[in-house]
């Protein structure tokens, strides 16, 4: 496959980069200009944000989404995320994105791997929670959008495959 048909972006985030917490914006900027993705930036943002936030919150920091459901839990959860990143002494997240042009549309693969030993990838079950649940629905939503979610627990990585449709009109 020549470069015209496939584009790869890999971003490795060390502790300093994780503290800046701008990985999602960096990935979107790196993929800017790919015609097949132009009308699908919202999906791209959602996919990368869900996988990256899961890796930070569950993988590196060991936070459990169920805590969001307790009184004041939502605020406490994000306060713990900020505090956890500020005091992080080691950890790494790698984001790999591959966009392959297809005869119709494109195929997008996003893989996020974390070095954490907190709540591993296996616990991020893509079940569909109740509509009233304050959290724990990221991977279930990805599946409902038609993405294929593959969890590699030993490697602490989650991969999303998404068939990017051909843009018709304005998305």
């Amino acid at each position: 496959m020549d470069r015209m048909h496939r584009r790869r972006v890999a971003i490795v985030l060390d502790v300093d980069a994780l503290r800046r917490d701008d990985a999602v914006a960096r990935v979107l900027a790196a993929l800017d200009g790919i015609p097949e993705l132009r009308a699908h930036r919202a999906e791209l943002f959602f996919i990368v944000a869900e996988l990256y936030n899961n890796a930070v919150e569950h993988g590196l920091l060991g936070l459990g989404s169920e805590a969001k459901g307790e009184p004041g839990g939502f605020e406490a959860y994000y306060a713990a995320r900020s505090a956890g990143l500020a005091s992080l002494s080691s950890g790494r997240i790698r984001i790999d994105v591959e966009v392959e042009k297809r005869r119709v549309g494109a195929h997008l693969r996003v893989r996020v791997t974390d070095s954490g030993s907190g709540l591993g990838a296996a616990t991020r079950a893509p079940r569909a929670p109740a509509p009233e649940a304050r959290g724990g629905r990221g991977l279930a939503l990805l599946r409902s959008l038609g993405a294929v979610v593959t969890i590699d627990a030993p490697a602490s990585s989650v991969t999303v495959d998404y068939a990017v449709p051909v843009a018709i009109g304005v998305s």
Partner: protein
Amino acid sequence: MPLTTHRQEGTLTFRIDDRFDFSLHRDFRAAHEGQSGVSCYVVDLTGAGYMDSSALGMLLLLREWAQGTGAEVRILTRTSFVRRILASARFDKLFRID
């Protein structure tokens, strides 16, 4: 500002531009908990092209707050992706979405 609020009599409107994600959670909560006498909260997402699942959690917190005061919550969106996310999360059963 990604989050701006506008109060007109009993209606408090939150306008969110660009990204509706967890980075807004503190401002979002402060904006509705600091107000009294609100009968309708409007979350205007017409300028928000991006959202993640934490935004759904924030909408639910607003709904819980509104239920406690007998107020209603409306969501405005023109973005097809945001609409898809809200539908996938079955938020059409919990909110009025226009």
